C-alpha cells in the first residue's frame, strides 16, 4: 500500500485543488449550456418556434392583439427600439424576425391604406420566414374582418388560429433536437478529458523519472505489484472524478436519469473515463513533465472539437466526422446521441450504442498496447 499512498499524496499536494477547481468550473459551464435545453416529457410533435421581437409603435388594440398573437406562436425576444439593438439582435441570431408596427397602423388599415410594416430578418432564414408568414396572415385576416364587419374582430382572429391541425409522429426525437441530458453528457466529454489529462500524467511522470525508476528497480517489491498499486490509485482518482460529474448530472436532470436511459449515459461516461485513463498512461510515458500540460490541452480540446462535444455531430462537416471517427471521444458523443433518440431499450435498438462502447474499449486496448511498447523501451533505457 506504500506506493498507493505515495501516489495519492503526490496527487493531493500537486493537483488536488486545481482538479477540484477545474471540476467545479467545468460542471458550472456544462450546467450553463445544458440548461439552455430541456428534457422531453413525452413523445409528441414539437413545433419549432421562431424567436420574434415586436416593436409596437402604434399601441392600438390591433397592434397589441397582433403582438400578443405573435408571442403566443413564437418565442418572445425583448429588444430596445433602437438601430444598434436591432442590429445586435440579428447578428447574434437572438431574433429571427424583428417586426416594427408603425405608428398609425390601425388607422391606416381602417382608411383602406396599406401601412408600412418593416421587418428585419436573417436573409432567407426559414425561422424568420415562418414568423413573417404568421404576421402577414394575421394582418390579412384583420383586414378581411374589417372589410366585412367594420371592426378588426381581434377575438375572432384568435379563435380562428386556436384550432391547429393534428400532427402525428411515427418516429423518434429529431436528430437536430438536443435534450438537456445529451448536451450535458456531450460537454462532459471535454470536461472529463481535460480534468483527467491535467491531473494524472503529472503524477505519473514523477514515477517515471530515471532516478525513481532505478530506485524502484532495486526495491524488493515486484514490478507487477507496484504497477497494480499505481493503477489502483489512478482508478480511485478517476472514479472520484466520475462521481463528481455524475453528481452534477443528477443535480441538473433529477429523476430523468433514474432510468435505463440514465444508466446508459453513466455507463458511457464510465467507459470514457477508462479510455482517458489509458490516454493518461500514454501521455506520461511519451512526454516530459513540462510538455504534459500542453499535450493534455491539445488532446482534450482537439477531441472535443472533432467529436461533437461542443458542436453537435450533425452540424459537423463530413471531413470533420471522418477525422473525428479516429478519436474515442467521437464514439462517446455518438453513443450519447443514440441514447437520446431511443424510446425503447431492447437488444435491437441498443445495437449502435453498444457498438460505440465497443469501439471506445478497442481504443483503450490500443492505447494500452502502445503504452506497454513505449514503457518497455523506457525500462531498457533505465
Amino acid at each position, binding site marked *: 500500500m506504500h506506493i498507493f499512498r505515495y501516489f495519492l499524496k503526490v496527487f493531493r499536494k500537486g493537483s488536488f485543488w486545481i482538479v477540484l477547481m477545474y471540476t467545479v468550473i467545468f460542471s458550472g459551464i456544462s450546467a450553463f449550456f445544458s440548461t439552455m435545453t430541456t428534457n422531453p416529457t413525452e413523445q409528441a*410533435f414539437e413545433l419549432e418556434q421562431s424567436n420574434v421581437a415586436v416593436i409596437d409603435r402604434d399601441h392600438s388594440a390591433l397592434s397589441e392583439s397582433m403582438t400578443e398573437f405573435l408571442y403566443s406562436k413564437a418565442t418572445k425576444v425583448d429588444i430596445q427600439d433602437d438601430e444598434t439593438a436591432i442590429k445586435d439582435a440579428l447578428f447574434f441570431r437572438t431574433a429571427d424576425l424583428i417586426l416594427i408596427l408603425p405608428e398609425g397602423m390601425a388607422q391606416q388599415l381602417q382608411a383602406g391604406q396599406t401601412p408600412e410594416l418593416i421587418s428585419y430578418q*436573417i436573409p432567407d432564414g426559414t425561422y424568420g420566414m415562418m414568423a413573417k408568414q404568421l404576421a402577414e396572415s394575421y394582418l*390579412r385576416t384583420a383586414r378581411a374582418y374589417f372589410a366585412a364587419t367594420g371592426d378588426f374582430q381581434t377575438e375572432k382572429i384568435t379563435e380562428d388560429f386556436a384550432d391547429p391541425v393534428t400532427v402525428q409522429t411515427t418516429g423518434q426525437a429529431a436528430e437536430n433536437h438536443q435534450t438537456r441530458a445529451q448536451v450535458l453528457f456531450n460537454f462532459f466529454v471535454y470536461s472529463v478529458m481535460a480534468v483527467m489529462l491535467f491531473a494524472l500524467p503529472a503524477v505519473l511522470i514523477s514515477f517515471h523519472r530515471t532516478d525513481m525508476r532505478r530506485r524502484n528497480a532495486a526495491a524488493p517489491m515486484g514490478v507487477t505489484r507496484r504497477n497494480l498499486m499505481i493503477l489502483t490509485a489512478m482508478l480511485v482518482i478517476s472514479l472520484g472524478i466520475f462521481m463528481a460529474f455524475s453528481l452534477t448530472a443528477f443535480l441538473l436532470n433529477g429523476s430523468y436519469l433514474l432510468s435505463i436511459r440514465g444508466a446508459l449515459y453513466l455507463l458511457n461516461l464510465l467507459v470514457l473515463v477508462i479510455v482517458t485513463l489509458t490516454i493518461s498512461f500514454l501521455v506520461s510515458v511519451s512526454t516530459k513533465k513540462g510538455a504534459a500540460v500542453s499535450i493534455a490541452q491539445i488532446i482534450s480540446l482537439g477531441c472535443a472539437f472533432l467529436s461533437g462535444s461542443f458542436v453537435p455531430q450533425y452540424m459537423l462537416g463530413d471531413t470533420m466526422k471522418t477525422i473525428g471517427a479516429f478519436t474515442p471521444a467521437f464514439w462517446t458523443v455518438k453513443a450519447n446521441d443514440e441514447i437520446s433518440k431511443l424510446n425503447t431499450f431492447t437488444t435491437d435498438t441498443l445495437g449502435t450504442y453498444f457498438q460505440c462502447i465497443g469501439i471506445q474499449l478497442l481504443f483503450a486496448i490500443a492505447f494500452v498496447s502502445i503504452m506497454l511498447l513505449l514503457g518497455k523501451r523506457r525500462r531498457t533505457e533505465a
Partner: protein
Amino acid sequence: MFGHIFLYTIKQQLSEKSVVFWLIVFPIFMAVLFHAAFSNIQDETLETIPAAAVVTVQNSDFLTAAEQSGMFEITQTDAKTAQNLLDTGKVDVILNVGEDISLTVGTSGLNQSVAAVFADTYRQTVSTLGQISVMNPDALHGDALKNLTSDEELIHEESVSVNGDPFAVLYYALIAMSCFMAATISVSIIARLQANQSALAARINCAPPKKLKIFSANLLASFTMQCIYNYLLVLFIWKVLGVDFGKNLVPILGVVTAGCFAGITFGCIISVLTKFSEGMKSGILIAFTLTGCFFAGMMSTDVVYIVKTQMPWLEKINPISRISDSLYLLYYYGVNQQYYRNLIFLVVLGLVCILGTVAVLRVQRYQSVSGQMPEEDS
C-alpha cells in the same frame, strides 16, 4: 545596455518552448479547431419540402394551395406508399387530405414545423371565411375575400448592411485571449526583478543597471514579441481561415496593439502586488483571462448578447470584452465612437498598470534574501 537587455529578452523568450507554445501555437491551434467545427454551420434557409399527399376527397383546395405555394415538392400516393416514403426519409411529411386535414411526420423538425404552420394558416383562413359568411355573407363577394386571399406583401423586409457571421465573435474573443495571455509573461518579467523570487533575480538586483531600465527593456521586448505573435494570429485567421474582420487593417492592428499593452501591463501590476509563487500568479492570471474570455464569448456567442443586453457594466469593466467588442464593431459597424472608447479604455488601463508597477518596484528593497529563495527546478 538597454538594447542589449532588449535583444537578450527576445532571444530568451524565443528559446522557451512553453512560451512560444502558449502565445502563438495554442491560439493558432484553437483557431483551426474553431474553423473546423464552426465553418460548416449555416443559417437554416428555406428549401422545398419533400411531401407525400394522401388524398381521399376530390378537388381539394388545400392540395391546390400547397402546390401553388411552391413550398412543397408533392408526391400524390396511397397511405402505405406514403408511410414507406416517410420511413425511408424520402419525404419529410405526409399531408393527409380528406374531410379534415392532418399531417404525419417521422420526427419533429424545421421542415415539419413549416408544413404545420402552412396547414394551420390554411385551416385558419377556412375558419375566417366561415365566420364572415355568418356575420356578413355579402362581404365574401367583395373586399373581405380579396383581402384574405391576396398575395400582396404587407410587411416590407428591410436589409441590414452586413449579414454578419456570429461565429466570427469566437475568433475575436480568441484574439482577445491571446492578447491577455501576455500577462503570464509579465509574471516572469517581474519575478526577474524581485530578488526574493529566484537566484537570477537576486543577481540582477546586484547588477549595475537600474531596475527601471531592466524593467523597461524587458517589458518592451515582451510587448514587441506579443504584438508580432498577435499580428500573425490576426493575419492567419483573416487570410488563411477566411474570417471577416471588416475593411480596415490599421484599426484592427490598433486594437490588438492596445490589447497587448493592456494585457502585459495588467500582468505586471498583479505580479508586483501579490506575494504568491510564480506558478500561482500565472494560475490567477490564466483564470482571470479565461473567465474574461467566457464573458467575451469565446465559449458561446449567446453569452456576448446576454452580457451586452443584461449586464453592460460587465462588458465595460472586462478588458477582454473590450478587445473582442472592438473587433466586432470594426466588422459590423466600422470605426465608431464605441471603438475609440474601447481603445482609450485599454490604453488608460495599460498606463495605470505600468505607473502602478513602477511605483511599487521603486520602493521594493531587499536587505537579505537568504532563506527566502524558492528551490530552483532541477
